[in-house]
């Protein structure tokens, strides 16, 4: 039980890797989107493992509950067909360039990770997620409260700005997606 968090970390890490490969490799966009859902759910779990429990819930609520539903809605709405992968094989030169570039990118930034030794560990300590009868009183620790103090005191301006951005986003989406009266062609 000592290193259960580490085990969980690796579990979710591998699920996420697999899911993200699923996203970029699957022909069918609906399946891709579903892999992305898996990716998000395990990312949320990973947040939980790292102790950011409020964000974990938020991740599920926002990404899985809203954004991905929207994605799937759009995919279904415009009835996207399967993608044809044959062209990728045909254009080998470009594909190779892409792979090499991404590899170079990864290697470059991997240098960053080496700066930190493996002794630097993340503090995952939070007192939350306990069954009610083992906590003798009703006090339950979570990081939601601390987070809210941060949000509404230190970051109140960004918070308000974000709300405006969201509003603009909503209006913009409506304006863009609104159908022109005359059908094209």
């Amino acid at each position, binding site marked *: 039980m000592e290193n259960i*968090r580490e085990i969980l970390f690796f579990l979710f890490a591998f699920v996420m890797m697999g899911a993200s490969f699923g996203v970029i490799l699957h022909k069918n966009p609906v399946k891709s989107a579903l892999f992305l859902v898996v*990716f998000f759910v395990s990312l949320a779990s990973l947040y939980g493992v*790292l102790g950011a429990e409020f964000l974990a819930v938020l991740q599920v609520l926002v990404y899985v509950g809203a954004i991905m539903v929207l994605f799937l809605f759009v995919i279904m709405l415009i009835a996207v067909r399967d993608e044809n992968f044959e062209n990728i094989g045909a254009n080998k030169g470009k594909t190779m360039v892409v792979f090499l570039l991404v590899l170079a*990118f990864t290697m470059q930034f991997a240098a960053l990770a080496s700066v930190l030794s493996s002794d630097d560990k993340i503090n*995952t300590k939070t007192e939350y997620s306990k069954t009610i009868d083992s906590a003798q009183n009703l006090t339950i620790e979570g990081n939601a409260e601390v*987070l809210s103090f941060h949000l509404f005191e230190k970051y109140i301006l960004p918070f308000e700005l974000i709300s405006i951005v969201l509003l603009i*986003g909503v209006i913009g989406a409506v304006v863009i997606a609104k159908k022109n009266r005359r059908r094209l062609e």
Partner: protein
Amino acid sequence: MNGAEIPVSYVIVLTLLLFSIGMLGVLTRKNIIVIFMSVEIMLNSVNLLFVAFSRFWNDLSGEMAVFFVMAIAAAEAAIGLALVISLHRKFHTVDITEIKELKN
């Protein structure tokens, strides 16, 4: 549960890999929606890094950043998908290589 457990470098490597996978998706796929989804992968890998460092330094600002990124991502998804719909309405396709309006 005794506090510090997961080395921060693990998370960095994980996020790097995820980011690169997302990037690969962006560069190789042709379906706009899938590219969009790959961008989301990249975005979320960075979020993960934020969370990890936030816990590492015991400073909640990192988590705040994630919070804001999520909000922005929601707006971005709404706008992006609206764009996809109007693109599809205009070109009847979501294949990015077939949409070459920039060229002319």
